[in-house]
């Protein structure tokens, strides 16, 4: 049986279930206790699991991640909430030099089963630092795995799979989709964490997206249909490692690919996808892989973000351009 949940509520229930399943799971972050987090993703969890397992921390991201590493060394499974994407950088040193490398450094003797949850992306009319898409900074870092959920069902299962994994995982949550509803079956996960998923089949061109842009890509596909164009949409879900086989299969079929993300184009995920697709599907491509992304500027003031972020029209424009070749 399934039920209708918002993406935020699905995460909340996924966290709750992970804490029920394993007493070693602890949550850490700013304002995650009584307040339940600024997005209420941890709502009610401190009340039910206590201050020892849902830990309001001092206001210091490096301290949060660094002490989480220590808790992991002690046998805990810390799940860290970074309040907003733009506030993860004080912890960047601990993430890149410690979280990502300690297993390697110790020749496998140490495992850090940590999840770092980051609400990411724009579209909520926020002030500076609250709308960023830092995924490339993490995906470029060997030793980290990076995933992004795009819908309530994935949110519910992916967070549990990430917590159950012994790999250190950056878990990206599309904050502007927290309130979007979807059907969730709580019986069992249907697909592995590190797999991409074809979320709409099509024949003319492949649109690759993840997190908040999956909905945008699907809307574009619906609109394209009216123009008589059939778009295949793939939700990448796992950003590092990438799950490329479904992507190659799709592009070999369609011959055209457009990557969509909010992050700036320069050295964004789109560049890596374009490079790999071109290398593996060179003779199948009718046009170069095109990218529809945020611009190569800092994230602008809120009243400009609608113009900054890829939307349905820009995705369709990108698709049109691949047909222009």
């Amino acid at each position, binding site marked *: 049986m399934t039920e209708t949940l918002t993406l935020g509520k699905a995460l909340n229930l996924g966290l709750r279930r992970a804490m029920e399943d394993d007493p070693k799971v602890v949550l850490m972050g*700013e*304002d995650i*206790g*009584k*307040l*339940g987090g*600024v997005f209420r993703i941890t709502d009610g969890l401190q009340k039910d699991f206590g201050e020892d397992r849902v830990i*309001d*921390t*001092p*206001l*210091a991201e*490096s*301290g949060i991640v660094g002490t989480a590493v220590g808790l992991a060394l002690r046998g805990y499974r810390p799940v860290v909430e970074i309040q907003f994407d*733009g*506030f993860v*950088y*004080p912890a960047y040193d601990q993430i890149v030099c410690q979280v990502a490398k300690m297993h390697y450094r110790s020749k496998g003797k140490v495992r850090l089963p940590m999840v770092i949850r980051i609400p990411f992306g724009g579209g909520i*009319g*926020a*002030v*500076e*630092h609250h709308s960023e898409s830092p995924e490339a900074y993490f995906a470029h870092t060997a030793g980290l795995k990076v995933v992004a959920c795009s819908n309530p069902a994935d949110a519910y299962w992916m967070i549990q799979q990430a917590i159950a994994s012994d790999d250190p995982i950056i878990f990206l949550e599309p904050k502007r989709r927290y309130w979007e509803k979807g059907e969730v079956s709580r019986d069992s996960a249907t697909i592995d964490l590190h797999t991409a998923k074809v979320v709409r089949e099509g024949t003319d061109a492949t649109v690759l997206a993840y997190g908040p842009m999956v909905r945008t890509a699907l809307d574009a596909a619906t*609109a394209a249909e009216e123009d008589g164009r059939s778009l295949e949409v793939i939700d990448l879900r796992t950003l590092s490692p990438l799950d490329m086989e479904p992507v190659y299969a799709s592009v070999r079929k369609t011959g055209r690919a457009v990557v969509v993300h909010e992050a700036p184009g*320069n050295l964004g995920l789109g560049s890596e996808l374009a490079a790999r697709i071109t290398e593996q599907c060179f003779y199948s491509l009718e046009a170069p892989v095109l990218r529809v992304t945020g*611009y*190569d*500027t*800092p994230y*602008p*003031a*809120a*009243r*400009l973000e609608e*113009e*900054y972020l890829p939307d349905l*029209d*820009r995705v*369709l*424009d990108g698709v049109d351009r691949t047909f222009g070749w």
Partner: protein
Amino acid sequence: MTRASSKRAAPATAADTDFVQLLTPDGERVTHPDYSVDFNPDELRGLYRDLVTVRKLDAEATALQRQGELGIWASLLGQEAAQVGSGRALREQDMAFPTYREHGVLYCRGIDPIMPLGLFRGVDQGGWDPIANKFGIYTIVIGAQTLHATGYAMGVAKDGKVGGDDGEAVIAYFGDGATSQGDVNESFIFASVYNAPIVFFCQNNQYAISEPLQRQTRVPLYQRASGFGFHGVRVDGNDVLATYAVTRAALDNARHGNGPMLIEAYTYRMGAHTTSDDPTRYRVASEVEEWQAKDPVARVRKLLEREGIGDDAFFAEVDQEAKVEAVKLRERVLAMPDPDPTQIFDHVYPNGSAEVDEEREQFKAYHASFEGAHR
């Protein structure tokens, strides 16, 4: 083999409350061995006017947010004395580095109060010239500005602008939560090692969003300074006179070349963290009421009444003038134009970038393609 007795830190708790106070909540003057003020009646009335005005403008901004005219607002309600007291203590040549809540200091610096509303409306990210106004751009990343302030103060010293009454001093504003950030502690180290002319002004409003002070420290924050090699003082942050006196002394201490000081202004955030916040989830009404009784504005009014230098006519006039300013502010906010979309591409680099220029052109061409057309 070794002594058993505990070595737990002194029993002082983060909440103990002896501080420098010159004006009680009832508007009575009290004396302090180290600090005093000698304002004349006009100056006292001026401070009252400042307090009423910044509170009124703040309330107007909150109302504008409620009506959807601002995206969010970080209210200073309850912290007027800490901000007006320290803001008025600044000399013209002094430089201030604010967080995102120092609207009262901004007002004292003589900056157009519309400025922060542009930021919170989302039309820009801070429109004023920080150098010309001697008041930095609002900084949202907690603690980051304390290092900028320290570096700026190091520059003041390099310029030889310390040592006399005309010396320049720098003030860095931050909150109780910010004291946990590495950057803030590193700024203490740099300021101390280089003996920079800076005052660290911590507004301890008892909360970092939902987290009470106890999540950041178990001893009073002003005590943090001594271990870094400079002096810390706690002042009643709801007492504009004491805040003025302590801040003025610290700034003068810095400008004369005696290095940094930390001031903990003990106050309270009467409102929500921001208009997005719901404080009922994490604090009780009785606590708020207790602080209500320590209101920073009311006690100055009582002082003026007590000393017979403010009558009902005066108070009514001040309220009226503040109301007029607030209305003006509202009208100007409503009249604020949205930015031109191509501003996305402006000021990415001082020397520009061909890549960004190209994106701007593509952006224009793309939007031109919709002219007339509609999907």
